[in-house]
């Protein structure tokens, strides 16, 4: 499955970059993340639980490796998830760009293969679920960004 899109953050690029490199922030933003820790340089490990309405599609052990880092501009991710009901494996890349209004545009492309029982039962839902999770994650990151900017402003 290929999932591409753009999202505009309401904050400067360096702040967005810092946000995207913080496992604690990502753990809170990614829907269903029960744990996400830095297990090595640019390497994350964690547990995610994907659920859709009443369906609880079990747990996935996830590892994410970051590569091609050009702060604060672009990076790629190697994603590997395994669970009792299937697997997800793929790559994603993220590019950040300054906007005229002080915001930051993020362009993301990803190509993820999903297999196992989850794919045979839920094939027709995978893209909708992925889009939903992506939207929730980005909106949550943007909220975190705004609250950081506000606390910076109140300190200075």
């Amino acid at each position, binding site marked *: 499955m290929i999932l591409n899109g753009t999202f505009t953050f309401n904050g400067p690029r360096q702040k967005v970059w810092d946000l995207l490199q913080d496992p604690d922030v990502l753990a809170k933003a990614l829907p269903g993340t029960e744990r996400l820790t830095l297990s090595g340089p640019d390497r994350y490990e964690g547990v995610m639980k994907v659920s859709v*309405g*009443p*369906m*609880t599609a079990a747990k996935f052990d996830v590892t994410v490796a970051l590569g091609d880092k050009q702060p604060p501009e672009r990076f790629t991710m190697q994603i590997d998830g395994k669970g009792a*009901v299937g697997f997800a494996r793929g790559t994603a890349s993220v590019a950040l760009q300054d906007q005229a209004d002080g915001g930051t545009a993020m362009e993301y492309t990803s190509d993820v293969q999903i297999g196992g029982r989850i794919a045979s039962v839920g094939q*027709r839902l*995978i*893209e*909708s679920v992925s889009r*939903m999770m992506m939207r929730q994650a980005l909106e949550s990151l943007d909220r975190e960004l705004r609250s950081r900017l506000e606390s910076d402003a109140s300190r200075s």
Partner: protein
Amino acid sequence: MKPAPFEYFRPRSVEEAIELLAEHGPDAKPLAGGQSLIPAMNFRLASPAVLVDLNEAAGLSNVTAQADGLHIGGMTRHRTLERSETVARAAPLVTAAMPFVAHAAIRTRGTLGGSLAHADPAAELPAVMLALDAVFTVQSRQGSRKVRAADFFTGLFTTTLQAGELLTDVAIPRTPPHAAYAFQEIARRHGDYALAGVAAAVAVDERGRCTSARVALLSVSDRPVLAEHASRALEGEQPTEEAIRAAAAAAAAHDIDPPGDIHASSAYRRHLAAVLMRSVLERAFIDAGRPFRAA
């Protein structure tokens, strides 16, 4: 495949069912026809700790034409809807859509309330209820509330129903004069999940001008979608072939952003939606015009 262990209750009344749902909260799921919930449990994609079986709860499957419209109980089987003359007279769009709802065996067990509460984006009845501007009655221990179909579906398998709530009644408003309906969908095999589908309810005035056009699409988003651009393009206008074509094109371009899967790409679904909207709207407006032309 076998489901995870669960506790099972079979209440005899709506009140008893609501008490049980309130008592067990988010751990409990109401069981209607079981045509989606039971397979999900067998695949272990859902594992509710408590099932409240509604099949013996009295008074949930009445179909009655009342002053404010047609009322259908939440536990009414698809098969009943398909064959009911009351439904055919008061809500012909429902009758038109029923043969597309899964297969005969599933229709024998499946229920209206179950389909709406499950909110599968590929299901026919949520889109039909959206086109008909139906109002759902939701009951819980706190009392009852009414929700319009347009406010009910909030995402993939997700509605405004909360734990402890039960969808007990569906009310379809009375049809205006010179109204007509059409339903169509495309599936690789009849009864499969549709690649795209359209339900339309239209009405015209004495001069044949469109007074209302509600077009709902299925299988093109994470929920049923109302084609607002189609309504806007048609209402107040003569529903000519060109007007219908333009309305369908506008709705396909602006009202939807379909997901792709191995069966159909996003672009193909968008194309299908436009073709189906055109075909369904043409059929509906021809039917709506007939009484006017004969008079």
